[in-house]
């Protein structure tokens, strides 16, 4: 990567007729312009796709993605629970949390979004406890305050939990964690370990 071609905000990257709009860019008049500073990435149109022939121009974000969007996988920590929902702070974005958020984003997992099956039987208290680290996916931007998340997939749910006695626990089934030093088991919506 010697001397990548760096664009600055406002820099014209090409005509909009011959290029596809990628991330970190915007349109001005008929021109495609950069909106952040970073290296220019050109993705060749795949041959199979017939509809778009033009190459897609985007600017790589040196800062990483900044905000959760619908469909983003996130990692966060449960901050409070009640029978209808669990409150969670989004701490990192991406399946392995590649992008760490500077400020936690408040979010909610509603009771009906915890599990895919037997939705009506799910109990929040048996799925999450305050302090659990949870992997979830953003399903909506939510209300003025919180994003709405879902853990209704096998690989989503609690990934790390601490027992009542303050010990790190290990998952022992799809719905239980175990404290190895006391042997006590606690109910959780466990994310399937991979």
């Amino acid at each position, binding site marked *: 990567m010697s001397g990548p071609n760096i664009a600055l905000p406002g820099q014209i990257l090409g005509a909009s007729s011959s290029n596809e709009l990628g991330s970190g860019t915007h349109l001005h008049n008929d021109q495609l312009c950069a909106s952040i500073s970073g290296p220019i990435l050109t993705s060749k149109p795949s041959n199979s796709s017939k509809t778009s022939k033009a190459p897609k121009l985007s600017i790589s974000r040196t800062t990483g993605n900044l905000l959760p969007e619908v469909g983003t996988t996130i990692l966060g*920590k449960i901050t409070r629970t009640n029978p209808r929902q669990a409150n969670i702070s989004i701490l*990192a974005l991406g*399946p*392995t*949390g590649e992008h*760490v*958020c500077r400020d936690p984003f408040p979010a909610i997992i509603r009771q009906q979004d915890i599990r895919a099956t037997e939705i009506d039987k799910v109990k929040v208290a048996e799925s999450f406890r305050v302090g659990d*680290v949870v*992997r979830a996916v953003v399903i909506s931007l939510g209300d003025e305050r919180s994003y709405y998340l879902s853990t209704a997939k096998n690989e989503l749910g609690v990934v*790390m939990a601490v027992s009542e006695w303050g010990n790190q626990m290990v998952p022992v089934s799809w719905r239980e964690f175990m404290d190895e030093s006391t042997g006590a088991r606690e109910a959780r919506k466990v994310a399937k370990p991979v």
Partner: protein
Amino acid sequence: MANDAETGPGLTFPQDTFAKLTPRPYLLAHLKHKTPVRPNGRQQNEFRQPTINTGSLTHSNGSAVVRVGDTAVVCGVRGEILLASDIPHPPSDDLEEQDLVEELGLVVPNLELSTGCSPAHIPGNPPTSLAQSLSYRISAVLHDSHCINPDDLRINYTEPKTEDDLPDEPPKEVTKAYWTLYIDILCLALDGNAFDAALLAVTAALRDTTLPKAWWDPDRESILCSPVVSDSRSLRLSTMPVASSFAVFSTASHLKKREEAQSWILADADGFEEELCDETLTVVLNSGPSTGSGTTSILKIEKTGGTYIGKDVTDLCVRQASKRTSDIKTALGNR
């Protein structure tokens, strides 16, 4: 390791993510490693090396910019004049000379954190408890160390002889006014241990301070100052207080047995470490103003939160602080 997304999300996290999600285990893992290193790459007892710049502010009588790691503090000292006749309640005669600065309020330090120096300190808000405590502690160190000589702040006037005076009596010298030093400390970037950095900035700025020559003008009945540089004199600090702070990271919990708890002393904790440490210790050593001069004495030992730091640990930290103090004095002396 960050790229195993294709095989599905596994439970390996990049470092930063690990630190964010479970900060305690993250720090613990570093400290428990067979060659323990703090996540910031420092040894347990290693302080960050400060860089000090002085005299860069045009409108201050003395100034300093201190950068300690990612904590940056700028301090400006400005002298203004307090007329003795304006003091509503003059100090009583039995006041000890060295307490005059405090009694009259001639040193006014204020530390401001609401400069956007970290996401937690956004402007437009009044000073937080933290900022207020820091201002208080700095003023306490300046007063208790008696590092500012009250004579440096006096503006005296020798009254002309009148007929009532006895001919042999020496001319009467009265203090017409005092310099008041406004010490404004702005924290521009905060990554832990604001106190050590702020106190260092204050002492560096005070050492850099020069006050113009000032005299009482009986005709105008006011104080005049000389703009000539060669007339001015610098403030001579009689002592040099240097602070060294430590934080304790501990696995102690009210849910666990006492014997199981492990604790580590971290010198000069950064912002990440500070969040995880409840117990803190600050040692302020006071010594002669220049490198190697004078004897070092302990000015302050302040510890709160937690139960790890007892007498022995304090002893250890005082020794580390003593080494730290000579390092700092060398850094300042080289200016």
